[in-house]
């Protein structure tokens, strides 16, 4: 089996998997339909202010698992749907940002700066077309980088990193995430520490479940769904509801500005926008490949760099960034969309989730079983088929299908979603809360899980109020067990050497980098505070 055989098997797994229906004698697989459904659902969710991709992924996962079960055949349809949501939500977020000056997703905030002024000038549809074209370009560019880089990175990791180095790499990843998410190293470390503490309750190698205080409920530990959905989704709903409550806002219906003039995206426009799109796509892809650095930062960087270039090269009559420059919309959308593919590089090659969407992909893989994201996935075994590698290439195929859908019908569907702004969040969010808690119960079938999720929800709310990002908590919760297991194995494998992290040069470099990133970030925070 060589690499081409594996790629072909991955494509076959998608196209020749279980049949959804047959059209003119051609079989259409369930996985393709799930990618399509996920993508369209993602656009709807992205276009609804107050909801975002992770919400949709969280509430879809238990339903998908109920439909497809816990068999290896379930992996590609479920992953395909979630990937569809991830991609759809990013372009959906631009719709209310351009039409109503309200970002549908946090990473679309920068899109409002030029998208809404363009809409006010009567160019709403043109701005939406630019947003879609830039988004689809950035996304496709990022996916190509993922397809090329993830296998190579995984092979390098497997070839050069042994257990002590892998332990060091996990510590470096957690430190990096603590330092970069939320802009405060102290708060990031607190979030990481709490996530690790939560995952260590009720686990361990001894017969007595540690830190359970002898309580039956804690002795089994916190189920991953209660921690992830509680902190990420329930906490976010509490925060959104509180903001609406403070504004005593029952929102009034809003209408998009009237359109005037030519709304088409011409070849000349594309030629003008291309350098901006390419630059932002490269920025978004580089940012996305780093665990923990999200699409919002990518959008901000893409916009800032784009503005600097625009000021130097624009003609006198062209609008500045912030006044309705098409380049502003393109810079933001290409950058934030380029994050989604690149974010899967650390997931697939290292097993380290970099953002909330990746967290749900790992959650799906863990729930269904048969696929453990990490360097072992890309083991090209020549004699025996590595089923995880087939799934990995199946996931790449799903991403390519989502891109094709995006380029063909994505723009039309996206432009028809303007009405989602008028769905009242006051009614939607409590229903989403019941849906999330029901989904947790359906998976865990015990009321204890609901109380855990509520507890984590309150924690997630408090963290948000205190500007402590909940994402490091979730990533630490997911990586905690693997960190402990790898450290135990490394300790045994080095003949019980307590300094195993310092005796290997690579592991030592990782540890020194972990310390350096925290110190650097801490000093930066002090500088900002002074």
């Amino acid at each position, binding site marked *: 089996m060589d690499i081409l055989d594996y790629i072909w098997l991955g494509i076959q797994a998608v196209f020749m998997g279980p049949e959804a229906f047959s059209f003119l004698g051609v079989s259409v697989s369930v996985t393709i339909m799930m990618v399509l459904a996920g993508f369209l659902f993602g656009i709807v969710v992205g276009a609804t202010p107050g909801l975002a991709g992770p919400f949709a992924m969280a509430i879809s996962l238990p*339903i998908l698992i*109920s*439909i497809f079960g816990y068999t290896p055949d379930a992996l590609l349809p479920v992953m395909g749907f979630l990937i569809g949501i991830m991609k759809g939500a990013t372009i959906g977020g631009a719709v209310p940002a351009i039409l109503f000056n309200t970002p549908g997703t946090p990473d679309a905030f920068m899109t409002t700066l030029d998208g809404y002024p363009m809409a006010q000038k009567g160019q709403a549809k043109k701005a939406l077309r630019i947003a879609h074209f830039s988004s689809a370009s950035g996304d496709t560019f990022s996916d190509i980088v993922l397809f090329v880089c993830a296998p190579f990175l995984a092979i390098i990791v497997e070839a050069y990193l042994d257990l002590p180095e892998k332990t060091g790499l996990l510590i470096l990843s*957690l430190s990096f995430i*603590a330092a970069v998410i939320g802009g405060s*190293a*102290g*708060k990031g*470390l*607190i979030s*990481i*520490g*709490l996530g*690790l*503490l939560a995952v*260590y309750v009720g686990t*361990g*190698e*001894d*017969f007595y479940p*540690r*830190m359970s*205080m002898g309580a039956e409920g804690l002795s089994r530990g916190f189920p991953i769904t209660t921690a992830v959905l509680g902190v990420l989704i329930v906490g976010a709903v509490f925060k959104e*509801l*509180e903001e*609406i*409550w403070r504004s*005593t806002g*029952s929102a009034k219906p809003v209408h998009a500005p009237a359109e005037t003039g030519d709304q088409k995206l011409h070849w000349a426009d594309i030629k003008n926008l291309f350098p901006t799109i390419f630059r932002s796509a490269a920025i978004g892809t580089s940012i996305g490949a780093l665990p923990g650095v999200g699409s919002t930062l990518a959008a901000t960087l893409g916009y800032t760099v784009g503005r600097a270039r625009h000021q130097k090269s624009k003609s006198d009559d062209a609008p500045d960034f912030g006044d309705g420059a098409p380049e502003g919309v393109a810079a933001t959308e290409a950058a934030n969309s380029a994050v989604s593919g690149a974010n899967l590089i650390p997931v697939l090659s290292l097993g380290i989730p970099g953002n909330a969407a990746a967290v749900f992909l790992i959650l799906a893989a863990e729930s269904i079983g048969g696929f453990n994201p990490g360097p072992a996935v890309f083991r090209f075994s020549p004699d025996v088929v590595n089923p995880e590698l087939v799934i990995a290439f199946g996931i790449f195929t799903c991403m390519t299908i989502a891109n094709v859908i995006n380029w063909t019908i994505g723009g039309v569907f996206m432009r028809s979603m303007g009405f989602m702004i008028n769905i009242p969040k006051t*009614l939607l969010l*409590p*229903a989403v*809360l*019941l849906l999330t*808690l*029901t*989904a947790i*119960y*359906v998976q865990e*079938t015990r*009321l204890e899980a*609901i109380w855990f999720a*509520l507890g984590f*929800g*309150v924690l997630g*709310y*408090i963290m948000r109020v*205190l500007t402590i990002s909940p994402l490091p908590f979730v990533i630490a919760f997911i990586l905690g067990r693997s*960190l*402990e297991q790898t*450290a135990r194995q490394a300790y*045994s494998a080095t003949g*019980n050497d307590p300094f195993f992290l310092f005796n290997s040069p690579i592991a030592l470099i990782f540890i020194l980098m972990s310390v350096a990133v*925290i110190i650097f970030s*801490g000093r930066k*925070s*002090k500088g*900002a*505070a*002074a």
Partner: protein
Amino acid sequence: MPEKSRSNLYVGLFCVAVALVLIFIWIPLDTKTGIVERARGKFVIGDALAPTVAAGFVLLGGLLLLVFERNAEDQPALGPSKIKFVASVVAVIGVGFAIMRFAGPAAVEVANLFREDPLEYRLLRATPVWKHIGYVMGGTIMVSGIIAIVERKMSRRAVLTGIAAVVVLIAVFDLPFDDLLLPPNGDV
């Protein structure tokens, strides 16, 4: 002029205190093996090491807040109004799930008053209508209650939204799947 929030100082102090309690009291008392254990003549990593490292992260984070970020600008505040709001939402959810838990069995008890052969809820938890009583009542109260808190008034629209949400969720989770249990039917 509103008082400047010093939340970083309080969060830092709280985290340092919690981490010290964890490292010196909770983890040693509530973990059967220490940081390193001697087993069959060899030293192995004990169950206390990982949570101690985790508490170390919290301690370090708290210290960074105290040393570097104590005087940061625009520190957020967790005021009493926010705590009251989230407490009231959690209370409504708690009441909703309590009703969800007991409404079905209570309905069976009421029905038994009029029957000669008594019914048992546990045997009816997969039977339509009986199995939905708790979820419909508790879910509707939860959704409409939260809407009422946010809108500061109870309205017909809130109740209708609650009913609609519950009906949609029954259609999504219950009707297509025989093996899924809506709350509270896994616990009764």
